[in-house]
């Protein structure tokens, strides 16, 4: 099963290596990883999508928590968060397929960022389903290049976390 976890870490050099090293040393497979500063510039947030059963997930959380630079680890429950990914796709076109490709792009609400005679560069942001649909629609035309940011996620229940690891609202 895929899990989305969010890790608040000290914004220091070497932290990413510690986290990724921990994952690889224990054989946990990262399927997506996105890192960036939070509202507090001394804190970064990593959103990591991992695959594994409950036991693996439990170990991932505990082992991550053990790292000195880790402030907090949160494991998002299905339905309690929104997630987004930015993707850039270069798709090949011909005078014959151009119109069809453009329609597909429009259908999923993606944007054309640049065009040439032979290809279109498309930008899309969205959740897993949207990105997947876009790729499926474009694949038959010939995808030349794909670049994705990795997923980021945010709690929507009001129980989310601030950069200091404290809950949004004190209950």
């Amino acid at each position, binding site marked *: 099963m895929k899990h989305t976890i969010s890790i608040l*870490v*000290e914004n220091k050099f*070497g932290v990413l*290596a*510690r986290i990724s*090293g*921990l994952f690889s*040393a224990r054989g946990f497979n990262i399927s997506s990883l996105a890192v960036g500063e939070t509202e507090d510039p001394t804190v970064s947030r990593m959103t990591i999508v991992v695959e594994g059963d409950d*036991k693996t997930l*439990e*170990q991932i959380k*505990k*082992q991550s*928590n*053990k*790292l*000195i*630079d*880790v*402030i*907090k680890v949160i494991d998002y429950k299905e339905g309690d968060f929104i997630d987004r990914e930015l993707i850039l796709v270069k798709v090949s076109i011909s005078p014959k397929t151009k119109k069809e490709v453009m329609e597909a792009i429009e259908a999923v609400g993606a944007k054309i960022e640049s065009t040439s005679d032979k290809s279109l560069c498309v930008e899309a942001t969205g959740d897993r389903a949207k990105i997947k649909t876009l790729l499926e629609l474009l694949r038959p035309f010939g995808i030349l290049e794909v670049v994705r940011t990795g997923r980021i996620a945010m709690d929507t229940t009001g129980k989310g976390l601030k950069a*200091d*690891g404290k809950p949004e609202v004190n209950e």
Partner: protein
Amino acid sequence: MKMTGAQILIECLKKEKVEVLFGYPGGQVLPIFDKLYDAPIKFILVRHEQAAAHAADGYARATGKTGVCIATSGPGATNLVTGIATAYMDSIPMVAITGQVKSFLIGNDAFQEADITGITRPITKHNYLVEDIKDLARIMKEAFHIASTGRPGPVLVDIPSDIQMQEAEFEYPEKVSIRGYNPTYAGHPGQIKRAAKAISDSKKPILYVGGGAIISDASKEVTDLAINNEIPVTMTLLGLGAFPITHELSLGMLGMHGTAYANHAIMDSDLIVAVGARFDDRVTGKLDAFAPHAKVIHIDIDPASVSKNVDVDIPIVGDAKTILRELNKHVKKPDTQEWVKTIAEWKKKYPLKYKEDDALRPQYILEQIFEATNGNAIICTEVGQNQMWAAQFYKFTKPRTMLSSGGLGTMGYGFPAAIGAQLGVPAAQVFDIAGDGSIQMNIQELATAVANKLPVKIAILNNCYLGMVRQWQELFYKHRYSYTCLNGTEPDFVKLAEAYGAVGMLITKKEDVRPAIDKALKINNTVIMDFRIEQEENVFPMVPAGEAINKMIGGGLA
């Protein structure tokens, strides 16, 4: 007052009350060594940096204090790696200081540059590269704090040589505050009560005690829990000494080379109370078959160790001593009469044994060392059969007297660890129980021991083989002794001892064992005893890797 980085470092060590520092010099730590020249800290010059780390580790295990070692950059730093990994696997508090090339050269493949923070990331609890002289004092304070609190472990601080020379105001922080690091010490009161009830209700409880109990100085609490409630106790290799093996409730060590009765008791128990032990595969054997009838209570300071290998019914995260004190208040004595009786019968029926004939057998040597030292010695071991015989036949009765590389299984650990232990506890009689293979991994430390007048006694159980590997080859590889025979290539250990200024003895007959030990104990110098033991003696019982722990070879119980 303004001080150089090197001075600041020394001041930090003084503030941390570091008495002894193990290390080796080099270009990138010269500013520090220059200040060490006048510092009120005992410096022990080892002959290989690996030994500096092991000696710091042995010092830490024997005293409970944090061990400190230092090496230069590049090869000096990488030579520490095995010692750091050894300490990491066994949760030993250690601070390792390394020199680094000048800040502006980092990343340029400068002479003697190695990315030691990168290399040691997976084998340290935490590590630092000092980038700004202003951070040095804070980092040192944090390093000692992190190394010695929570689940202890090694912390490495890498200091570029230009930073050792730069100046800054010295101000040692009073307190450490790290957002992400707040170890839990008190156990959850509700869980403690549940655990107490489970113990009170059990019929066949067993205590399974690991190195964590020693680290937390919980020996008294373990003993109270066991004796007041008549609960049998088994210990891991690193747990030995937490409860006296000589007590009737003790089952000695469990696991691959544990006693038949310990393994059988675990498999038959209805409740396991694990204290500072992590259900290592050498202990559990085949996991699916492990202790099928038992509920598990797990007391551990590291939440990640709980339910990692074995599913736990009642987890209690925190310090073993603190938790056991609380637990001991709540437990009502369970009815274990039948259970204790059964176990006493097993103990009588399936004792640890060996052939008692005229041959020179290692088990006999260990029994004699035990008797000659009244069980008061600090026993360090190397790795292999020697280690397992020590665990089986020296009856450990006190904590911090069994120093052995459990988690990593590092040959070459014992002798430098003995040096560290002897420095930490000068009054103690310190032994290194060695194999002829292992002792040659750090034999150069004879110079360190002799130079510092350390009366460490090295007992080489010399079988002319890399014995433990040979044993596996005998049992599982059809006697094909592929590169495990050292016969014909062994040095003359007596001459070797003498060459270093130590004392050497050769013992080939059973009747000479005790007189030799007694004589060695009287010598105020480093002594090597080269015991020529039965060459193909094996360690039994033995659970083949991957088998259930009651499926022992040579254990008496099938």
